[in-house]
């Protein structure tokens, strides 16, 4: 039943694509496409939710499509259902946002036809139950999102972003393809059911694991495979950026979980170490890169990298605990990861919506020209603030809950017998803590420079509050962030069947605990109650306010800012995003980015302004990618000579080939 609804929904989305080709140019186009996708995704999401909570038997179906002798297999187990919820919730929210935002699109025919396909492809990846259908949808997802990335192709950067994206995407797909090739075995058992039964040798299993880490990781944005992400996500229209960052990366996480936890039955003992190390590095690198950005959307994209790192830390811990048979601990780590998947999809979409609203209001992505928007667009500012608090992992919002669970899981590391892990896990914990703190710093900067202070440009002064559809979407997500923050138990219980299915154990039931508190292992080990914390703060804050206004003064007078006696007229003297990040850049940047500051101080009497220039270098690109590019270019240049030989020289090639083959024959036994 659920499956039928979901597949029908996908069909509907493809139909919308056709429709978009027809009426995309008309004023009606965006309304139909986005409204339609909103409804369809809402339905599909609800169906999946029903499947997840109702815990019915996993429905399966086989359509006579795809590989002829195999057919297209579909299945919705608990894992798929959960990710369907994430995907379709995000898609629905994005469509709602786009109902307002998308109407102002200047090239609708470059967005509308691909948008529903993109949504459908993401859901299809999750419900696919054989390798061909999976990779087909996976690559369809990539290519349709590529089309959306190059929708605004006038700017060179977007084209470059799209190019790097499509190459990296094919790279990842090939990695997954090879992995499936190994899992399927030589006689091509491409159905997931067959793969689960196929026994693998340890080396093959290890190979599969690495390939999956590369394939899914390149899509999710694990360092050092993340390079395309901060280029491509911001280049797309904002609602698509939200989808790519908030949802598509989660599909990649799904691929990792599906293959490593489900299909790959042979355990690889060192897998957890590899995953943990990469994940820890990803966290810190991601947030440090984010701190150095001035482009709001790119900053958000880099934060996606960071959060993916957090998710993979959870998954790595789950692998570690699973490898040593600590099922309940594995369940804790796994649940933490999944909960963060959900939470991140909420607040990352929310933040991208906010950035879209800002982009719309001021026409700029560069934070250095924003400022003071909180006065012009207070509602957007409020929702963006909620998102910032959530992503900075601060109570009482949802971001904190999942990171708290991850910490709790890390604290179980002493139970691990392996020495390597004993030492690795606390180190990873330190990295996680560092990245959490840096994230907070980064969002103080993002929100402060964009929304607070004084406008740094005319455009920022003239900004207008965004339309009501966008606001509705943002408030919806902000509300969900709060609810998921103060009633985490409900969501953890919803995840129980997933954990049960994949790590064989699940967290104790949370919803019957008093005051909605959550207790991952035992009361004595640690507990958290978002609701109470929230209420306490509400009460004490309002108590203080009331008391003061009643008993003490409530008088208020406006006046010029004091600023130690010399208030500066020009907004240019405010702290900008670069200057705000400067202390942190001096701490980390010199090592991470070869940050170099050059001060050009004119001589006294010289009228030109002094300049301070900061040079940052992306070492990962320099080390990992530049050589490849150079190598290919070199090879192309060398081989290209062959295009300009004379006929006689070509004949000599043929002659050489002939003689060579004859020699082979002559020495053939």
């Amino acid at each position, binding site marked *: 039943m659920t499956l039928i609804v979901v597949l029908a929904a996908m069909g509907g989305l493809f139909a919308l694509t056709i429709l978009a080709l027809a009426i995309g140019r008309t004023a009606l186009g965006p309304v139909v496409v986005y409204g339609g996708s909103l409804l369809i995704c809402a339905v599909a999401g609800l169906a999946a939710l029903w499947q997840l909570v109702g815990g019915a038997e996993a429905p399966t179906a086989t359509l006579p499509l795809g590989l002829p*002798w195999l057919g297209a297999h579909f299945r919705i187990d608990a894992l798929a259902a959960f990710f369907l919820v994430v995907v379709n919730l995000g898609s629905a929210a994005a469509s709602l946002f786009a109902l307002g935002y998308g109407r102002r699109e200047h090239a609708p025919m470059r967005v509308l036809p691909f948008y529903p396909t993109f949504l459908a492809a993401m859901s299809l990846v999750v419900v696919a139950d054989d390798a061909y259908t999976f990779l087909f949808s996976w*690559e369809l997802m*990539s290519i349709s999102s590529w089309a959306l990335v190059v929708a605004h192709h006038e700017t060179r950067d977007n084209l470059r972003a799209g190019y790097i994206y499509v190459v990296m995407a094919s790279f990842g797909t090939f990695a997954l393809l090879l992995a499936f090739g190994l899992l399927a075995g030589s006689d091509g058992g491409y159905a997931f059911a067959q793969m689960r039964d196929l026994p693998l040798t340890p080396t093959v299993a290890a190979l599969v694991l690495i390939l999956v880490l590369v394939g899914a990781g390149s899509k999710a944005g694990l360092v050092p495979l993340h390079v395309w992400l901060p280029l491509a996500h911001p280049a797309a229209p904002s609602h698509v950026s939200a989808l790519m960052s908030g949802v598509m990366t989660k599909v990649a996480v799904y691929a990792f979980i599906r293959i490593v936890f489900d299909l790959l039955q042979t355990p690889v003992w060192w897998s957890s170490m590899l995953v943990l190390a990469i994940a820890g590095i990803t966290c810190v690198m991601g947030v440090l890169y984010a701190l150095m950005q001035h482009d709001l959307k790119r900053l958000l994209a880099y934060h996606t990298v960071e959060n993916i790192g957090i998710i993979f830390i959870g998954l790595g811990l789950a692998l570690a605990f699973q490898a040593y048979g600590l099922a309940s601990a594995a369940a804790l780590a796994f649940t933490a990861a999944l909960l963060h998947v959900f939470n991140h999809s909420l607040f990352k979409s929310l933040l991208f919506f906010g950035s879209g609203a800002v982009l719309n209001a001021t026409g700029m992505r560069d934070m250095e020209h924003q400022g003071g928007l909180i006065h012009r667009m207070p509602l957007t500012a409020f929702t963006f603030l909620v998102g910032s608090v959530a992503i900075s992992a601060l109570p009482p919002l949802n971001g904190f809950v999942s990171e708290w669970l991850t910490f709790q899981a890390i604290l179980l590391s002493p139970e691990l017998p392996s020495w390597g892990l004993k030492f690795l896990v606390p180190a990873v914990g330190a990295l996680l803590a560092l990245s959490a703190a840096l994230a907070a710093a980064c969002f103080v900067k993002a929100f402060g420079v964009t929304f607070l202070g004084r406008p740094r440009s005319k455009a920022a002064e003239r900004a207008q509050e965004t339309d009501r559809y966008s606001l509705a979407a943002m408030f919806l997500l902000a509300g969900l962030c709060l609810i998921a923050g103060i009633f985490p138990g409900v969501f953890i219980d919803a995840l129980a069947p997933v954990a049960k299915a994949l790590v064989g154990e699940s967290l104790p039931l949370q919803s019957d605990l008093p005051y909605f508190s959550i207790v991952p292992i035992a009361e004595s080990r640690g507990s958290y109650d978002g609701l109470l914390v929230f209420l306490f703060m509400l009460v004490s804050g309002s108590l203080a306010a009331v008391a003061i206004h009643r008993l003490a003064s409530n008088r208020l007078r406006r006046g010029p800012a004091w600023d130690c006696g010399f208030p500066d007229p020009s907004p240019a003297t405010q702290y900008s995003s670069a200057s705000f990040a400067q202390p942190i850049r001096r701490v980390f940047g010199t090592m991470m980015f070869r940050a170099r500051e050059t001060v050009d101080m004119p001589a006294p009497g010289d009228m030109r302004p002094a300049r301070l220039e900061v040079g940052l270098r992306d070492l990962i690109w320099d080390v990992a990618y530049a050589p490849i590019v150079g190598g290919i270019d070199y090879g192309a*240049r060398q081989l290209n000579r062959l295009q300009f030989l004379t006929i006689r020289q070509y004949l000599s090639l*043929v002659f050489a080939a002939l003689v060579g083959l004859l020699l082979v024959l002559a020495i053939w036994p």
Partner: protein
Amino acid sequence: MSLDAVILVLLIPATTAVLLAVLPGDRRTAYLNIAATFLTFLAASSLLFFDRPPPGPYLLVDDLNSVFIVLITFVGFTTSVFSASYIDHEFEAGLVTPSFLRLYHALYQVLMFAFGLALLTNNIGVMWVAIELATLTTVMMVGIYRTHEALEAAWKYFILASVGIALALFGTILVYMAAQPAIGEGLDSMVWTILMAHANGFDPGLLNLAFVFLLLGYGTKVGLAPLHAWLPDAHAEGPTPISAVLSGLLLNVALYALLRFKMLLGANPEALAPGPLMIGMGLLSVLFAAFMLYRRGDIKRLFAYSSIEHMGIITFAFGVGGPLANFAGLLHMCLHSLTKSAIFFAVGDIVQVKGTQKIADMGGLTVTNPVLGWGLVAGVVAIAGLPPLGIFMSEFLVVSSTFAREPLLAVPLVLGLLIGVGALFLRLNTIAFGEPRGPTHKAQGSYVPMFAHLGLVLMAGIYLPGPVVALFQNVARLLE
């Protein structure tokens, strides 16, 4: 009944060729051309449905060549439709003369006849003659514009092809000598069906030697590196419909010949396995072409090199063998000729719109000519092996089935594919996106053939009809 169909497949083009040769050159002859190719296509496809005649000394119909003949005649038909509109535009533009039209259309039919003969014959000698005929015809068509570049390309093609032909003939003679002791003197020793029947009695050493010569001889036509040199220039300098014919038809026919001889070697237990040789040349072609794609400034050469890459993939697949890989190779061959000819249709229009073949002088095509531009994008996405289009399926099968058995072979293949994808999209960015560059006339050529092909490829990616699958699987088993 069906023997008549076979005769028709050969007869229609032959007679039409004579007819077109004698008729005065005129725009209307294009319609005669279309009609003839269409009838040929009908006759060919009827081969699928009626029971087949017993193989004679000269003619043979089996699963393998019926797949080829249907594909070839279909692409021949659509190409003739496209070429009608294309040549018409050239004619209006005053680029070509009536005598040109006459020659062009006559040669087109001769070509179709040569292909049909090469595919349907049961005799390796006749096959060789037919392929030589096809070569000479295409040489003349490539040089038909009489420009310096065209003449040079044609000349280069001619010389290299002649050497290839010579080598192929030597191989054919060797096969005969290998067969002659077992079968006896005379015609029988050149007849496929009989050769196959007695293959295991042949002298393996001679067969090996023969295969080396045949691989190099027909491989020249397939365009495998390092024998590819004629291919890019021939594609680039001839009329665009002929580029489509070369990529979509000639390469496949040559490949068909190779496959036949591979089967022959496969049927002889002592002979060395032809697989490794084909795998080696296939990989070489893929990697080489992938690198060559990067520095192409000429749009037709770009896609010519991509043809080399894909012929490499197909040869590789057949070299690997096994039901999956063979199926994949066959599928890839069909889809590649459909896609590549569709791309060349698009390229023809683009060149007419922009008035140049230099990629640097064209840009923003999706802005100026949306239908054409997105058609090209779809074609490139397809040729890059991305869904929802069908080549994804064949590449999926090739890579995954190879990797499970021979991991070390799949890795270089994947590298080549990846590098190729990079190059194709790099050029696509320049052609289809960005600020519009160059003139922006309306395109004259008809879009119908292009989108017909793309539609078929799209369908293949999503749903393959059962009968087609069954047919392909039979062929795959035949090729074992």
